[in-house]
């Protein structure tokens, strides 16, 4: 510990800190410009100058980079210190008369006007070099530096041209104390968007606000450290030292008794339906985007706004986008009707817009759903029965100008209508996850025709699969809403627990077997088995079937060219006898 005196107060502080930090602890304010806690102090602006009194006399020191010493006596606002500070600020004011923080500091110190010659009245840069050091020390890009010397000194990129080394991180602007560096145009540079954040986000972030566990991650593609090897500011500020840039992805092998697959769904990409204009027309948004917009933590703070910042006066919600359509998915996605009604309700609550719901049928099948639909009818949402053919911005009349026009056949009155709205919400359907086929392969389960995982039996075993010990929960099995998902997940957990608790399971009686004596080891069956139940034993030169995995599908039996693989209870002899039986007159 170090004992010292600041402004007449005797204090004890820890070793190795600066005078500025010691003063901060005592809530004594020393003005600074080129100081930032994340950067090594450099004492360029010399605004933080203080008087250090020793036995014989006193000297002026910059408090930001002078370490405390035992027996030190500091005066932060003595005449001598203030005189020097005023002089320094006056000179800074001549260098950068347009810099607001310098103007404010000058005012604070009672300087009305600088006595020195002003070179450029619009100058903001005080040549402190914060930006240069941030670019070099923190970012590691070294894209900017000082150019020339003396009174011609300025901060610039090499030769004053746009620098290849600049990664557009804007750290220079962030650290600049006077606002001399502004980020004017990031267009064409990488601005990091997280898909539904509707705006730029940081390289280290929590994936979504409902994430479990609620832990941030580093987006390696966007993180400066992974570009230049420098920065690591996040680990500097993290008091718990929880950030490890060297951490690698690891594969963990676990032995488990049962597995529940809950790999979810993919939202239908409405840009596949060009007639709806998604991605082409402003204010045509997907359901998930609307959900994000209306969320209290959204960039608009939960306000429903158009891209021009105004509130919509009319909104169209189009049902069955990518569902119940033989061109895309023939099945019903089951959730869109209800969330569309919810959207209509939220729109009514938050805006005064006219709301149009374009539907094929209202599928309000769940508990309380029909009642909710009735509530919406009373709230005044306009329901139009018919599939929308087109969303365009081609106005045919004055009312349609500047609007999105929804063309639809109103099947209840039998006319084609044009309805101008400000915003269109596409109730996108649910699709199997992009990697569902791979997952199915890994777990030896099947997918039904629509691509969702196939349950063992639609009525009697809706959470089981054809692979014992593997259960399904949620939308990976079929589109379903939250109550259904919770119910299925509960059932899957019970099934998994029951199996694990029992510690054994029943084998399929009808399985295939390979006669060791007859198998010639041609291995044709090995690659064919949809349950990977067959392995080739190199030493014995034969293929073997794992009874626990075999489901008795018979693929290997029909493919086995030597007849070594036979299906129990369905041997060729039996089948031929049956065929003969059929032909007996």
């Amino acid at each position: 510990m170090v004992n010292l005196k600041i402004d007449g107060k005797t204090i004890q502080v820890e070793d190795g800190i600066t005078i500025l930090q010691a003063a901060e602890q005592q809530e004594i304010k020393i003005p600074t410009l080129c100081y930032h806690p994340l950067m090594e102090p450099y004492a360029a602006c010399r605004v933080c100058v203080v008087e250090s009194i020793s036995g014989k006399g006193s000297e002026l020191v910059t408090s930001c980079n002078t370490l405390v010493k035992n027996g030190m006596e500091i005066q932060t606002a003595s005449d001598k210190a203030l005189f020097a500070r005023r002089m320094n600020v006056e000179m800074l004011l001549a260098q950068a008369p347009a810099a607001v923080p310098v103007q404010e500091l000058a005012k604070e110190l009672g300087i009305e006007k600088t006595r020195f010659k002003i070179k450029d009245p619009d100058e903001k840069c005080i040549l402190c070099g914060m930006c240069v050091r941030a670019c070099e020390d923190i970012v590691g890009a070294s894209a900017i530096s000082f150019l020339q010397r003396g009174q011609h000194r300025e901060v610039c990129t090499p030769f004053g041209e746009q620098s290849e080394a600049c990664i557009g991180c804007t750290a220079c602007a962030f650290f600049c104390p006077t606002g001399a560096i502004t980020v004017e145009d990031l267009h064409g540079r990488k601005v990091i968007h997280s898909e539904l954040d509707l705006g730029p986000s940081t390289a280290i972030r929590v994936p979504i606000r409902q994430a479990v566990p609620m832990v941030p991650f580093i987006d390696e593609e966007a993180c400066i450290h992974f570009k230049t090897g420098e920065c690591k500011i996040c680990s500097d500020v993290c008091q718990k030292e929880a950030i490890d840039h060297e951490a690698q992805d690891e594969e963990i092998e676990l032995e488990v008794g049962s597995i529940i697959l809950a790999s979810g769904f993919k939202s239908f990409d409405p840009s596949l339906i060009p007639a709806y204009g998604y991605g082409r027309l402003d204010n045509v948004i997907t359901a998930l985007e609307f959900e994000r917009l209306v969320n209290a933590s959204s960039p608009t703070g939960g306000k429903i706004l158009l891209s021009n910042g105004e509130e919509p006066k009319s909104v169209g919600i189009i049902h069955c986008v990518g569902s119940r359509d033989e061109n895309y998915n023939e099945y019903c996605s089951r959730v869109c009707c209800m969330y569309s009604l919810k959207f209509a309700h939220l729109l009514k609550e938050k805006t005064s817009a006219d709301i149009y719901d374009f539907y094929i049928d209202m599928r309000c099948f769940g508990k309380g759903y029909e009642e909710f639909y009735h509530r919406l009818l009373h709230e005044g949402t306009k329901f139009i029965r018919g599939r929308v053919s087109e969303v365009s911005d081609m106005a045919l009349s004055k009312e349609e100008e500047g609007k999105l026009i929804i063309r639809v056949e109103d099947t209840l009155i039998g006319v084609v209508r044009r309805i101008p709205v400000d915003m269109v919400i596409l109730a996108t359907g649910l699709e199997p996850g992009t990697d569902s086929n791979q997952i199915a392969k890994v777990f030896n389960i099947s997918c039904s025709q629509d691509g969702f995982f196939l349950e063992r039996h639609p009525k009697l075993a809706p959470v089981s699969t054809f692979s014992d010990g593997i259960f399904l929960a949620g939308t990976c099995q079929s589109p379903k809403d939250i109550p259904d998902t919770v119910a299925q997940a509960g059932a899957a957990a019970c099934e998994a627990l029951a199996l694990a608790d029992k510690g054994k399971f029943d084998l399929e009686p009808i399985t295939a077997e390979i006669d060791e004596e007859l198998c010639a080891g041609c291995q044709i069956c090995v690659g064919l088995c949809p349950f990977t139940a067959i392995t080739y034993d190199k030493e014995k030169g034969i293929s073997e079937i794992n009874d626990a995995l075999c489901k008795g599908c018979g693929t290997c039996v029909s493919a086995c060219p030597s007849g070594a693989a036979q299906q129990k209870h369905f041997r060729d002899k039996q089948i031929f006898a049956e065929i003969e039986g059929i032909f007996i007159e």
Partner: protein
Amino acid sequence: MSTEKPKVAFYWCASCGGCEEAVIDLAEDILKVTAAVDIVFWPVAMDFKKTDVEAMEDGSIAVSFINGAVRNSEQEEMVNLLRRKSGLVVAFGSCSHLGGIPGLANFWNRKTIFNSSYHTSPSTDNPEGTIPQEKHIMEDGKELTLPRFYDTVYTLDQVIDVDYYLPGCAPPKHLIMTAITAILEGKLPSKGAVLSPNKSLCDDCGRNDSKPEKLAIKAVKRPWEVEMDNEKCFLAQGIICMGPATRSGCEERCILGNMPCRGCFGPTDQVYDQGAKFLGAFASLLDSDDEEEIEKIVNTIVDPAGTFYRFSLPSSILRRKRMETVK
């Protein structure tokens, strides 16, 4: 001629003569055979007449080796005669065992075969349009006869009772010697056995280890279309090799000559139909899930029936093409 030696007969039906050659190929081993047995009937090599056989007591011939398929009345008559006179009948070679190459005639019938052979083939010079007659009266009143040519080619066991089968086109020397030794020593397997190991050829094949984990065929190639790797599994090269569906015992004669197996040894005991079984296996190797693409791959197979049923059509569950009604 000592009477203690067992009597042996050889006969050929619809065959190329290669099986007779196979007997001759025994070379000096044939001396061991003749030392142990009396050959009482062998039309190719020795001068005996049908009447000599008819004169023998029923069952007096220890074993008759009959090669070739049965496709006319003379062959049928002779094999029935030999059956009556013999204790054992061995179907010798692919044609008597499965129908063989002549068996491919079952895709046609007598009418279409005669039409091709005596009328339409480019080398035919037959202005009067004569076709073989079963009976003809000469000017001098003499009657000439020819055997009746059947619509269908039969395997030997479709005509008479067969005790054993010696597979192969033609049966290899070591199998013939093993069979003869077993018969002489009385160490015979149960009736109806094929005298060759009951495993498919992949078991012996030196190329089996070169097989990838999953065979995937994108296009079917014929041997002359590709530069063949002489160590790699033929199927892995996209060449149809019947080895997986064919009984072993041939000592991989074709494989060692860098030619794929054509299936002359027929299927293993547990398989009813070699062609169908191989087709089942082969179809599962096609590397596509798209129907159109699969059709494209399948169309690259030239002569599928002749490829998969090259030796086994008459013995298969197909037997023959449906007989066309004669117009």
